[in-house]
């Protein structure tokens, strides 16, 4: 027994010697302790709530061990804990002479003396949250800690507690902290879809690889239906990875596959790519309204007069208007109508030329066999998600036209459903997220006023419809729309205007800019806004085998399936119990 005690003592002494906190531990042999320790970094020496806190680093804190975008905790005087984000790291000096006349080369002693005294490292820390003294709940920060309050690096537990966001399993693990791979950063999906969101990043930063699993998470957790305008055919069946690698699209993720519907605008291309669409989307001329074409005013370079003429024709010919304009049906009254509506001959033929360019798109046909868009809407209201593949149709006109066409009808239907629900004769429409790539094409300040996307971003949240904007040029998006975006996920951006645009309407933007500027060009993103308690830099998860595994099977037990169906059908729990 005595021997065993001795052994334990010896081990404890050895542990002390080799602890990573012991600065005299033999180099290379220090053990990382199992319990992560709060590492003291320095003390608060000044600053303000708006401009951030100045933190003087302790002498033995290595600046190289810190990173912009990492978190720190500050224990306030009143037991409140502040959470802050490092927004800048700099080298400072009490006496500028020390910087102008550094110690001579080889004089390590002097360098050692100066470090931490005459010259020192300093942090700029933006206070982000304050943990409530009693409940420990995060609150917006409204004050700053006092002078000389010690600052610690946040431990994985502390960060994880903030980002747990675990409300009934609606949390989505978007990646890991850049500081420590073991810290999982989760976002609250319900909050994410509650307001419009955006994924920004210059081309090649992995926006699609970030958006696809995120949308899969939204679908799997049933927080919303999604409608994806898939301009580059990435989301539906296969995703083109680097070096020609083929990755799985949403339809190939078993757990959510039954809830994914792929509609294609280009059957031939879909067949070639073997993307197994559920149906081909066709739109008949008679289904098109002048408002659908009005949104293309800029793309088709239609003048205001010509746009007015579209409405005049529609008033006159109703559903046949486009047939007349396209010259598909001859009408003897045409001259009379043009004269009455004060449309000049030249105007009409110019209009005809421009419209024919649009009508040349394969999915636009004089007569459509079905109301395909109606089918899409039915799927969405039932809780399915729809991917609209553009196939080889890569013209901008097609993209703008189709997305506006469908979205306008969604808008109408959701407004109606919501009003019915409010009137007591229906259920609330399911939350819907519309994902649009190249969003600046619709949300450019000149166009945003006309397109339905501007309206959705601005006001459709009330009707349970929000946008997920995926774009590389945030600067070209209407600032009014930008200000409505709840959650911003930003990968690396290089253009100054784009960086400035991302921070429209964000407080303390100046400091966060430096965080954004320090992102790696791949697999790193700054997330801020509604779905996260405070801005966070994440190393996004790699889309591949690990994600496939999670979605390997539907994993719905009969009970779960029953509960889900009951929910979709609007039955309450008591009905479910009767079964």
């Amino acid at each position, binding site marked *: 027994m005595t021997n065993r005690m001795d052994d334990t003592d010896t081990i404890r002494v050895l542990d002390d010697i080799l602890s990573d906190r012991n600065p005299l531990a033999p180099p290379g042999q220090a053990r990382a302790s199992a319990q992560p320790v709060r590492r003291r970094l320095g003390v608060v020496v000044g600053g303000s709530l708006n401009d951030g806190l100045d933190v003087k680093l302790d*002498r033995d804190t290595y600046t190289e061990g810190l990173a912009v975008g990492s978190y720190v905790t500050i224990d306030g005087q009143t037991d409140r804990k502040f959470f802050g984000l490092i927004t800048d790291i700099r080298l400072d000096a009490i006496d500028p*002479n020390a910087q102008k006349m550094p110690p001579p080369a080889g004089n390590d*002693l*002097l360098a050692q003396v100066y470090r*931490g005294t005459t010259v020192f490292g300093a942090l700029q820390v933006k206070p982000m949250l304050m943990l409530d003294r009693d409940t420990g709940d995060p609150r917006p920060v409204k004050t700053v800690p006092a002078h000389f309050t010690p600052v610690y690096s946040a431990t994985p537990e502390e960060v994880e507690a903030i980002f747990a966001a675990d409300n009934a399993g609606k949390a989505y693990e978007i990646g890991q902290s850049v500081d420590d791979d073991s810290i999982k950063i989760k976002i609250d999906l319900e909050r994410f879809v509650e307001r419009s969101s955006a994924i920004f990043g210059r081309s090649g930063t992995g926006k699609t690889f970030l958006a696809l699993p995120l949308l899969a998470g939204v679908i799997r957790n049933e927080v919303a239906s999604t409608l994806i305008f898939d301009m580059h055919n990435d989301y539906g069946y296969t995703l083109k990875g680097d070096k020609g690698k083929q990755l799985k699209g949403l339809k190939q993720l078993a757990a959510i596959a039954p809830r994914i519907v792929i509609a294609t605008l280009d059957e031939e291309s879909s067949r070639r790519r073997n993307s197994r669409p559920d149906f081909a989307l066709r739109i008949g001329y008679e289904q098109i309204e002048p408002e659908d074409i009005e949104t293309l005013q800029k793309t088709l370079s239609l003048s205001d007069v010509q746009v007015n003429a579209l409405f005049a024709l529609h008033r006159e010919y109703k559903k046949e208007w486009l047939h007349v304009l396209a010259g598909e049906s001859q009408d003897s009254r045409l001259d009379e109508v043009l004269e009455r509506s004060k449309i000049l001959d030249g105007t009409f033929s110019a209009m005809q030329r421009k419209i024919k360019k649009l009508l040349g798109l394969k999915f636009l046909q004089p007569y459509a066999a079905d109301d395909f868009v109606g089918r899409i809407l039915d799927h969405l209201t039932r809780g399915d998600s729809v991917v609209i593949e553009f196939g080889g149709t890569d013209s901008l006109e097609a993209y703008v036209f189709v997305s506006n066409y469908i979205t306008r009808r969604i808008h109408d239907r959701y407004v109606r459903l919501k009003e019915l629900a409010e009137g007591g004769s229906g259920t609330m429409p399911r939350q819907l997220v519309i994902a649009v790539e190249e969003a600046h094409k619709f949300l450019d300040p000149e166009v945003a006023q006309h397109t339905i996307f501007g309206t959705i971003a601005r006001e459709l949240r009330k009707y349970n419809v929000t946008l997920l904007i995926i774009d590389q040029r945030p600067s070209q998006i209407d600032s009014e729309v930008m200000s409505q975006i709840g959650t911003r996920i930003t990968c690396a951006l290089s253009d100054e205007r784009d960086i400035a645009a991302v921070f429209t309407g964000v407080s303390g933007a100046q400091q966060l800019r430096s965080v954004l500027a320090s992102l790696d060009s791949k697999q790193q993103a700054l997330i801020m806004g509604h779905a996260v308690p405070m801005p966070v830099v994440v190393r996004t998860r790699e889309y591949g085998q690990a994600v496939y595994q999670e979605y390997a099977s539907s994993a719905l037990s009969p009970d779960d399936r029953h509960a889900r169906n009951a929910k979709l059908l609007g039955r309450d729990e008591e009905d479910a119990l009767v079964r």
Partner: protein
Amino acid sequence: MIGRVIQANMRSFVFGTRVPESDVPVFGALVKTSIRHRQATLYGLIYDIAVNEDDDGMTRMLSVAEDAREEDIDWQRSRLIPLNVSVLCVGYQEQGGPIHRQFPPQPPIALSEIECCENDELIQFTEQLDHFQLVLDARDTSCDELLAASISQAAGARQAGLRRDFVVGCGRELARLLMGDALRIERIMRRIRWDERA
């Protein structure tokens, strides 16, 4: 015992000693005496050693005599003419109490005995460096030189392997007290001498 106090005030005192022998203190050394009424030990740093003129002018004459004899010089040196050693008070310790690195409550009285501090006392005294401020404030001394000399001796009193860390610690304390005045810190640091191996 290396000498006795000749004159004293609150900040400093002067003691007389014979012609330096090997154990006679040098510039920057830590010496001690007692303040009898308080039963306390007073510590000080030697900042000046002066050779005074004798009253009968013998030394003057011998200094210019063309044929001064060695016996005369030896005889003159063996007379009781003291060296005046000036000491800056840097701390005191009441019996059984901690060391206070500040001015003593009273100066030593005349003819108090002076002793050199041993290495362990020097180490103990320099475990804290609060007395640096007293030295820096002593404008009538070459305080930078004095600090450098005393740090060198305190470093030398320590075990090999611990000396560099001590010197770095002193440098940092200086940097703090001098508000990061890089030029002055460098000047002092350059004057500190120690040998890590000896």
